[in-house]
């Protein structure tokens, strides 16, 4: 009993930690794609933000300044994507992919030039990272059966960015469904002409959406390098941006289902970490590489077969040009 509870609470806690950047990036993608801009550059934005956060934190010793730098870097990348795809009607996939490739190359080069540590930033000390926060009563409640370990072991003890991500889901849902901005956002991804003829600027709306996407990706990137890890390493996003995009599709471009999809992917990841080197009854030890592929295999399976009818915003990916 005690063991099972401990296992559950460790797994749940790990799932939350892995899910945080996925949720933030997926919500970023939600803003972008609901506005009609395909955002395959989530990966690059997150990676750029991770580097900016780690580099700034390493120099200044402040995790918060690092976060600010991450927000700025990621928003800048988002605006470049907007400039190419909104102002100049470029192909959104090409523009996003170009950002990914550029960032993947640029960050290690800059890291090399500034820190001389073969493409990494220096290890960050405790001060320069977001540390765990013990929620009120975590200590005293820990002894209460069942609820205690869950509260103190799963819910309490994360860094602030995890809670921020958790808070982001209801906030984004509120913005998308209950505000005028949300109405316009949903409309512009479906029929930009309707928005234009209703007297609302399509470009402005899409830029706004991309800025929001940039900010959310910035938090995700800062989380990776200054909370979850202690520094930037080459390609540290490892496809999380694409995974977030998959979760967004799986979640049908809606906030809560997208959150659930992220949790599912994160759980698969937590399982694969857990299974590494552990003998499975009847099979023995499964090669690590095979286990590590698990979340990605799951993604492919889910997207290929179990999503059901997932209809993207109708105008997604189509540059808006006025009809003659």
């Amino acid at each position, binding site marked *: 009993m005690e063991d099972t509870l401990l296992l559950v609470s460790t797994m749940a806690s790990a799932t939350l930690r892995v899910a945080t950047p996925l949720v933030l990036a997926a919500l970023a993608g939600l803003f972008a794609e609901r506005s009609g801009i395909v955002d395959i550059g989530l990966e690059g934005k997150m990676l750029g933000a991770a580097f900016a956060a780690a580099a700034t934190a390493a120099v200044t010793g402040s995790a918060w300044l690092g976060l600010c730098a991450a927000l700025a870097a990621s928003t800048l990348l988002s605006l470049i994507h907007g400039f190419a795809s909104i102002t100049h009607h470029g192909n959104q996939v090409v523009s996003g992919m170009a950002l990914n490739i550029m960032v993947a190359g640029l960050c290690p080069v800059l890291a090399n030039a500034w820190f001389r540590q073969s493409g990494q930033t220096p290890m960050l000390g405790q001060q320069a990272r977001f540390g765990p926060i013990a929620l009120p009563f975590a200590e005293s409640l820990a002894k209460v059966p069942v609820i205690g370990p869950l509260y103190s072991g799963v819910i309490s003890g994360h860094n602030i960015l995890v809670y921020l991500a958790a808070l982001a889901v209801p906030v984004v849902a509120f913005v998308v469904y*209950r*505000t*005028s*901005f*949300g*109405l*316009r956002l*949903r*409309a512009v991804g*479906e*029929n930009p*002409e*309707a*928005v*234009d*003829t*209703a*007297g*609302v*600027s399509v470009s402005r709306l899409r830029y706004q959406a991309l800025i929001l996407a940039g900010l959310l990706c910035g938090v995700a990137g800062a989380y990776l390098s200054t909370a979850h890890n202690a520094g930037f390493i080459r390609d540290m996003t490892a496809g999380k941006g694409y995974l977030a995009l998959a979760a967004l599709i799986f979640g049908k471009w809606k906030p809560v289902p997208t959150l659930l999809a992220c949790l599912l992917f994160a759980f698969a990841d937590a399982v694969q970490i857990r299974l590494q080197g552990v003998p499975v009854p009847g099979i023995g030890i499964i090669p690590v590489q095979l286990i590590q592929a698990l979340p990605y295999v799951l993604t492919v399976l889910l997207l290929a077969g179990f999503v059901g009818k997932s209809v993207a915003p*109708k105008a997604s990916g189509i540059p808006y040009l*006025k009809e*003659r």
Partner: protein
Amino acid sequence: MTAAPALDSAIAPPQGGRWAIEAVDIDKWFGPVHANRDVTLRVAKGSIHGIVGENGAGKSTLMNILYGYHPADRGEIRIDGKTADIRRPSDALALGVGMVHQHFMLVENFSVLENVLLGAEGGALLAEGRGKARAELERLGRDYGLEVDPDAVVEDLPVGIQQRVEILKALYRGAETLILDEPTGVLTPQEADKLFHFLRVLRDQGKTVILITHKLREIMDVTDRVTVMRRGAVVADLLTQNTSKEELAELMVGRKVRLGGDKAPANPGAVVLEVQDLHVNDEQGKPRVRGVSFNVRGGEIVGIAGVSGNGQTELLEALGGIRPAASGRIALKGSEVSTRRPGLTARILRRLGLGHVPEDRHRMGLVAGFAAYENAILGHQDEKQYHRGWLLDRARMVDYCGEWMDAYDVRPGNPLLEALSFSGGNQQKLVVAREMEHTPDLLLVGQPTRGVDIGAIEFIHKRLIAMRDAGKAVLVVSVELDEIMTLSDRILVMFDGRIVGEVSPETATERQLGLMMAGIAEAA
């Protein structure tokens, strides 16, 4: 300056009234195309003002300028006598100009209420404006007879109601001047009548309506004044009561037009198409054609009249080999071509001597992104004449296409242009050229002149009659009663998947046909 066109009482607004909206010396270029040339339009407050012109005459461009969707290159807009700086739709909306576009500007998966709110939410949170909009919609619905369920999702509504939502959107934004671009294209005659009634109510309340249409009868019915445009310029501005359909048609096209046209009596020969007890279902398996029998002889034009959606589309598709029939018999020149036989596709039918101008040229008649010369041989691309060895003979295709473009007056006559860069009328002429030039014995024609300007209508009608006179069989399906009456030697009326009667165009009246189309009366 060219000689003064037929402008009567042009300058002063009638009876000391005011101009609601004025466009003065508007000029607009789209790349190399001069879409509006020094256009001046004055619309009196509290009137219904019609604008007519062929496709590409610049009507929609002018309206889009008034609405701020496309800013003008030069010229001035005045609203209520004051110079207005309209550069985007929000400027026009703020000045009380609303527009119902030809293609509806609705978010299909939104509710009616959400569509009305879009752009006029009245606060950062939706809840604030929602209650007000709901009450206002109810009031507008009551006052104007425009009731709509505010919570209905737009994509579930029929087009007539969707148009109502568009009008409500404009009224909700406080439109004093309402621009309607080809509003009746999607409506049944009854719905169009209702719309006109509503426009008169609006006018009587002092609002101003600008109506763009290519249907002259609508202009004569409902407008107070009419402006005629041709090739980007205004050629006439007339009081409706002082003009006639014939005069308007001539002004639009720039030469005398024979509305109706005349033709020699038919000389029917052998039966070319024989249809017996044909049943056709739609995708959902719902019966759409329910036991239809008729035949078409060489040297005659048979017209099928009916309100859209009574099985004509499915009938035509089954005859064209695009849709399998559920049961029944189709014989072309005596040989049975039951479309249930697998493999008997449109291609084989073409080889047997069938030509088909489909109802929807965008979806079936053309490939928009292909060049004209490629479109000109589609469906016949396997024929030897277009090949040199293994390869398509591009030079020859271009040659043929160029000849046909001359013969069918397709403008601009450049075979290398993409199909989508032609106007609707010219696209249709290209499709008609392709089908006729491959010398069919039977030509199926669906909506021969839908979205086509007067000049092209006249031309296509002439060609169809010429084809008949050459002894070919022609089957025309059209929802335009005028067209059916003009072209046909025999008229079949379809209602609810059945042919409810056959009449002769000489003796039939529009009223009688209308009643038959509504399933009320049988053939006399």
